[in-house]
């Protein structure tokens, strides 16, 4: 039940990958710390963000309707979709009516969640990822490694070979030149595309607006050059007012990459207005459920919906920093992935996942919206453990019984101490043989030496101390 996929062992044993993950996340941690230090009210901002999200989520129906009214008032349309199939159907239907074939896409975890590109391409659309990291991954048919730094695990040599293979260019290992190659290819796509698809970092209820933050400019281009803009977002992305961005924008960039503001923050409401020279002629916002209402129904779990996808928890997680983004079963990795994967998919699909944490709490400490991830993990563990009867359950039942009987606890300790084979110099144990060397002890000894039980317990020594 609690065995992790074999791939984890491979990742941990790969020194290059270990170095890449550790240094990249280390850098992001340092950037965040540097940008947060000068904010005297940083903790107050976190509390404000948490409260704003709680308020919005607890009144979500109201804000969904307000949002819809305002999108329509500005000339746009809102499309509610139960799941990814409905999203794809809507887009394909629209594309059919408009004779559209080419789509440019900016980075959106929500669209990865529903495998949107695959669905669209199966029906003859060309849907091009335009964020550099995502573009590379699309060519490689790989999933993102990290919410904010999707190609974290790749080297320039891999990128060079990829471009040569897929774009037919000469092998180029200089990163700046690789970027220029991608820029040129994608520029053509932006200007020829029929539809631009974006995600949304925030949906603003009082404005009917979509907020997209980025550093490259591909989201601006995707939402400004093509005649049709479709923004796709989970229903939980709502915040009540444009002025609430005053809280969230101060937290998002800093938490993600250590930037006070990302290079571009776009606040988009509706198609272009009368007199505006450019901008899309049609504007759609797709509001996706796909399991979110299930979390909403649970008063404890709905806190997971506060997430603003900054990636800070990933960067600070000592487990993520060892296993990287591809060892998580779903598109969302790191601590947030650890709680929402079972919350969306059911706890028994990947029952090992909530246990793959030392509960260190580094994630909760840096989460800009103060999601108590360790607490959610503990609740998921309780759900998993209590739904099964197993040897482990019986073992803990025994443990509890023993702990309520102090004299028997002392006796068991004594027996353990007598029967543990000890190295001659009474040092720590490196190997155990025979029937003792099973299960937990065997696993412990895979990685480190084991301390032997003390010959005399503290109880014994206290008596000898004579007080």
């Amino acid at each position, binding site marked *: 039940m609690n065995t992790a996929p074999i791939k984890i062992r491979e990742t941990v044993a790969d020194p290059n990958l270990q170095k890449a993950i550790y*240094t990249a996340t280390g850098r992001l941690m340092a950037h965040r710390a540097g940008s947060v230090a000068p904010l005297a009210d940083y903790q107050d901002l976190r509390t404000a963000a948490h409260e704003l999200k709680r308020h919005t989520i607890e009144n979500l129906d109201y804000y969904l309707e307000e949002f819809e009214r305002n999108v329509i008032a500005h000339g746009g349309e809102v499309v509610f979709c139960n799941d990814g199939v409905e999203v794809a159907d809507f887009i394909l239907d629209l594309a059919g009516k408009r004779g559209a074939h080419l789509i440019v896409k900016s980075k959106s975890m929500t669209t990865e969640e529903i495998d949107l590109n695959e669905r669209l391409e199966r029906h003859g659309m060309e849907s091009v990822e335009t964020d550099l990291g995502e573009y590379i991954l699309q060519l490689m048919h790989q999933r993102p490694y990290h919410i904010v730094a999707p190609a974290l695990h790749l080297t320039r040599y891999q990128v060079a070979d990829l471009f040569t293979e897929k774009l037919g260019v000469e092998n180029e290992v200089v990163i700046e030149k690789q970027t220029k190659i991608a820029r040129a290819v994608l520029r053509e796509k932006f200007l020829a595309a029929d539809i631009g698809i974006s995600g949304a970092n925030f949906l603003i209820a009082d404005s009917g607006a979509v907020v997209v933050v980025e550093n490259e400019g591909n989201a601006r281009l995707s939402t400004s050059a093509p005649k049709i803009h479709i923004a796709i977002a989970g229903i939980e992305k709502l915040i009540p007012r444009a002025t609430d961005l005053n809280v969230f924008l101060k937290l998002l960039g800093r938490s993600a990459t250590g930037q006070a503001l990302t*290079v571009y923050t*776009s606040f988009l409401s509706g198609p272009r207005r009368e007199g*505006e*020279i450019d*901008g899309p002629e049609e504007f759609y916002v797709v509001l996706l459920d796909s399991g979110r*209402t299930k979390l909403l129904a649970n008063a404890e779990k709905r806190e997971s919906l506060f997430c603003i996808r900054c990636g800070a928890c990933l960067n600070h997680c000592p487990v993520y920093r060892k296993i990287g983004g591809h060892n998580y079963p779903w598109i969302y990795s790191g601590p947030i992935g650890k709680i929402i994967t079972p919350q969306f998919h059911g706890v028994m699909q990947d029952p090992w996942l909530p246990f793959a944490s030392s509960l260190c709490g580094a994630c909760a400490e840096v989460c800009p919206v103060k999601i108590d991830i360790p607490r959610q993990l503990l609740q998921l563990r309780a759900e998993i453990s209590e739904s099964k009867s197993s040897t482990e359950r019986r073992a803990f039942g025994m443990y509890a019984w023993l702990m309520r009987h102090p004299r028997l606890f002392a006796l068991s300790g004594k027996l353990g101490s007598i029967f543990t084979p000890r190295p001659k110099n009474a040092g720590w144990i490196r190997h155990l043989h025979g029937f003792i060397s099973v299960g937990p002890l065997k696993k412990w000894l895979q990685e480190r030496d084991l301390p032997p039980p003390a010959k005399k317990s503290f109880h014994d020594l206290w008596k000898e101390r004579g007080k």
Partner: protein
Amino acid sequence: MSDSRTDILDRVRAALGRKPGQPPQPLPPTVFQTRNLPTPERVELFVQQFAKLNGKPVRVRGCAEACSVVRDLINGKTAVVSNAPFLRECGITDLAGVQTGFTARDELSAACATADFGITSADFALADTGTFVMLSSPKEARLISLLPPVHIGVIPANSLLPNLDELFSRVPKPADLSSSMVLITGPSRTADIEQILVRGVHGPGEIYAIIVE
């Protein structure tokens, strides 16, 4: 999709135990941190922050100097200039060789796609983050600050605001004004490959701020 709409709203209400039309709980108003910063200090701060981002700030006295700086920068290369009245005031729209006065999207897009420079003004600038705030309008198209590889923003010093708080305090509903408000903070960049920073990925890789005092 009206069925899905009803489904989802019904599920949301059921999950929260709320009735249709039920008003939300009260929400406290946004708190703005006002920052008392006289204009000369705003300019200093903006220049400092803009430079930190690898933007190139230039302080000038008066429109004539602004125009002269722009002329030297573009140095005969192609430039698209927006329809901002401030740029006309400064004479920048009249510079030899620049393209301006676009009102149609296709022509604008074609011009921007090949121009070396995109020259705009801005509605506001934020001193503490070195940010341009641009609202899309008949005066300012979106693509001018986006397609050409170099963006020059020419702004009057009194368009500078101290911080984001001040912006949202003055513009609590950007959607009332425009279909697009964009905050531009430095040149386009990425660190997607090996975490090595590269500028000018899709947006401009070089950005100038000409602050007219």
